């Protein structure tokens, strides 16, 4: 599982991008998206997913159902 940005409600404020510890959030023409191969759900860094915690618009960053839950490397 990674996180995913809902384009229709995202304002493009970039706050999530500044906080991501994995540089998983990319911007193209003011559209922000999360690279599922880089997102670790913040596991190993912080207790809460940083992008979700700072995003000003409720329910804009949600779990990505297409991607299995991140497993911290052992």
């Amino acid at each position, binding site marked *: 599982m990674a996180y995913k940005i809902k384009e229709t409600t995202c*304002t*493009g*404020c*970039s*706050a999530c*991008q*500044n*906080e991501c510890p994995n540089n998983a959030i990319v911007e193209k023409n*003011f559209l922000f998206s999360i690279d599922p191969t880089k997102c670790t759900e913040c596991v190993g860094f*912080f*207790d*809460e997913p*940083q992008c979700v*915690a*700072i995003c*000003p*618009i409720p329910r804009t960053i949600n779990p990505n159902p297409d991607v299995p839950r991140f497993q911290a490397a052992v």
Partner: protein
Amino acid sequence: MDSGNLKVVSLLRVMRPAGQGSGSGCGSKGGDGKSGCGSSAGQGDLSPTVWEKVKNHPCYSEEAHHHYARMHAAVAPACNVQCNFCNRKYDCSNESRPGVVSERLLPEQAAKKVLAVASTIPQMTVLGIAGPGDPLANPEKTFRTFELVANFVPDIKLCLSTNGLMLPDHVDRIAALNIDHVTITINMIDPNVGAKIYPWVFYNHKRYTGVEASRILSERQLLGLEMLTARGILCKVNSVMIPGINDQHLVAVNKAVKSRGAFLHNIMPLISAPEHGTFFGLNGQRGPTAQELKLLQDSCEGEMNMMRHCRQCRADAVGLLGEDRSAEFTTEKVMAMEVTYDLASRQAYQEKVEVKRQAVVAARNAELATLAGERSDISILIAVATKGGGRINEHFGHAREFQIYEVSTAGSKFVGHRRVDNYCQGGYAEEDSLETVVRAINDCQAVFVARIGGCPREGLKSAGIEPVDRFALEYIEQSAIAYFKEYLARVRTGELMHKLRGDADIRQGALIA
């Protein structure tokens, strides 16, 4: 600039900054003993060093607002706090009009834009970074922009507006970059009040809610303020007045920020309507009336300098008050421009402004001298139609705002603005637009204009506001004092009954359209 310095020294004694003046009591604001009774209120409580830094700053002096311009660079989109008066789909409403989206610039684009504007408009003296989010939630973009501008346009003053949450972490960098003004928006010092204003803050990698969020925010704001003033960086505090939530509380905020060295406090009315989509707007939270705002500002004034002239300008506007030139400086146009930076012509312009300013002050002081010896409890408000320059030089029907002056035997002082829609818009005056004006200046005894038509003249009179055009093109304060003398005489002979007038409306929206 030797001659410039001489002028400055003489101005120190006579000028008034930021729309604050002598007040009506003598003892209340002795400061360092410089201000006497009314006539030489000068820079009020401000020390000469502070006044030197702010006198050409459009945000700190009402009358500099007409001669100088500031621009904002929208390089900071992210924010780390949620305010109930803000709709995050748009720009931060602390420093701009709600419901406006500005273009977003990269630091390099912003620097080029500043250079282009400064080369074209000699009045442009200040660059602010205030949003659209919080500059210190975007520290890299913000400081990169300041660095570039300081390199290319060295005579521009830099200023920064922030919600204060991250301020303590950046004080050293602010000092190193020579940023000489910082504005912190502080709406409460009591977390229980804050909980009604801020649903959450993002701090230390965590989202905090409720009272705890406001406790963190308030601690960080006050700490940041103390750290800045300890380094000699000027701090202004903005507060948004929210009736029923923090209106009474702002008196305590005023004391708290003054004791920590803020040099100016700007209490702004909440601008709130459902169409802004803010929490307050959607929940019917109203903004204050003109009288409520003035009462609060008056009750804080004994404590420190109040700022009365803030129009909550649109953050991305470029140019002097009332003449937005931002269309000339779109990102596309700016990137294509060839600019040469002419420092000499900028300085020449600024010297001319100094001369004009001194004339205004001299005229006021001369008139004030003739009031010496008069004692009366009466004080009146006068609305003035002006295009700037300290003169009554606007037609009633063309006025987009009125400046409000309070006059008593202690002197005259600027106490605020009232916005009105163009009364003449579309050529013919309509009845309801006169009503709009009357509602906006309903607390005034008179309105000074350069000219006025017959219809509105009658309308004003029946509303109990005297239209006055005999001071057309004269200096505002000089005329206000002259009018007040006659007013007192008329009351004394019984020709006139002095009555307190009613309340007035604060209209929504910023003046720079």
